[in-house]
């Protein structure tokens, strides 16, 4: 029995193999990027099962459209954009981008240095997941992905003003919850013993 273990030295060879439709190349791409893309999906789609559905659809889209990849940017960035697009399409289907919630007044900003040291990625991902879908999407697109309000407006179909307002509300919510976390942790007796 012939033993063939494909081993793609570079990203371009992997892309060529994907363009030929090799199943093993698809497997390699999935194993290489699945976890990172899953985090992106979870940032947009808070539900784990929905995020996995979005992930599957996104990879299927990648494998279908790999012939459109022109090698002008990185292959990972191309996949990431597809993940974001698919997440937005999922949210648009569910019409959850226009939800708004009432905000409490934020009295003071949290200690960002403490938050940077104490909060891990999972904690921050949980805070993002607690945001409303509209706020979360605008915050992800603007703060993490780096889109402008104009791009966000074109991607989501909302106006730039709505994007700006939702971004402000998303920031306020996150600052408020980080401050709550900070207060809770610092008021705990274990924190005083550990700090001393």
């Amino acid at each position: 029995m012939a033993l063939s273990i494909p081993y793609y030295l570079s990203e371009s060879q992997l892309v060529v193999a994907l363009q030929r439709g090799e199943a093993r190349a698809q497997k390699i791409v999935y194993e290489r990027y699945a976890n990172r893309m899953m985090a992106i999906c979870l940032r947009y789609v808070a539900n784990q099962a929905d995020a996995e559905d979005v992930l599957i659809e996104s990879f299927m889209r990648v494998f279908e459209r790999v012939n459109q990849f022109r090698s002008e940017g990185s292959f990972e960035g191309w996949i990431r954009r597809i993940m974001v697009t698919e997440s937005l399409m999922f949210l648009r289907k569910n019409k959850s981008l226009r939800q708004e919630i009432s905000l409490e007044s934020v009295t003071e900003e949290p200690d960002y240095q403490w938050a940077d040291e104490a909060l891990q990625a999972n904690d921050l991902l949980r805070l993002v997941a607690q945001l409303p879908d509209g706020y979360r999407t605008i915050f992800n697109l603007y703060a993490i992905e780096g889109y402008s309000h104009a791009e966000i407006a074109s991607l989501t179909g909302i106006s730039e003003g709505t994007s700006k307002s939702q971004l402000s509300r998303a920031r306020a919510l996150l600052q408020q919850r980080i401050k709550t976390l900070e207060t809770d942790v610092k008021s705990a007796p274990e924190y005083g013993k550990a700090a001393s």
Partner: protein
Amino acid sequence: MEKQPVDDLFARKLHDAEAPVSSDLFNRMQQRMGTKPLPVRRKIGAWWYVASAACALVAVCFLYLTNKPEKQLLESFAQKRLPEQSDVNRVVTKRRDRFNGSATRLQTIDEETEKVTKEHRKPGQLAKATYPDLKPTNPKSQLSAREHRLVLTQQVEEQIAVIKANENEKSVPAAPQLAISQPGIERVEQATVKPKQITERTILLTINEPQTKNELAASNNNYQKPDTQNQPNGLSGLFGKLKQLKNGEVMAKATPVSESNSTQKKRLGRVFTEVKESLKNETTLE
């Protein structure tokens, strides 16, 4: 709108974040894609490891069964080679018995040799001793019948003189008791014994009373008849020969007897002949 610290915090922490996925997610994706699921990759490495380990185990077992380990070999060898005290005692007793038997046989050989040499044998003649009771270790050995040269030493010569002095009645001198080199039973290199180099020879002769004709005839049967034609004529020749013998290696000592010149000449001539024969035999011995 500028970025705020909260934006940087989330961007820094979440841009390259990872989240675990379900193990069957890829198969679900393949089912949705309508493609055949990829065959489960055979764990070739594991099978190869198992096969290699099995082969190595078989090889080790084969080597163990065919060749015992070195330690076990050494132990078995030590157990075989280390004799017990009883074995040592048995070997020592056996060797002692053999030595005692050899000593007894050597003594017997000495006695036989002495018996043979006591018979009328001339010095220097080869003595053939047979040892029928001896069984040499080497079957090809010829130890049962071996010839030994008689070594004439100074002590033997002195012993001859003493015997001659004691046996004045007989004209034929008794054969000296010779000490021969004892033949080795198991050592072949002692078959031929080199005689010691004679640095000084002294022969003591005793001239007895004149013998009768019968006695002379009896003595001539045992000894070779002297060559009378080569005898020196006259006193001058006789004294010259005696002087030559004296200067050489033989010194004659005659008993003072009041005889006539002719009788003295005959006696001296016979002495000369005997001395000459003795010297000739010694020369052949050397």
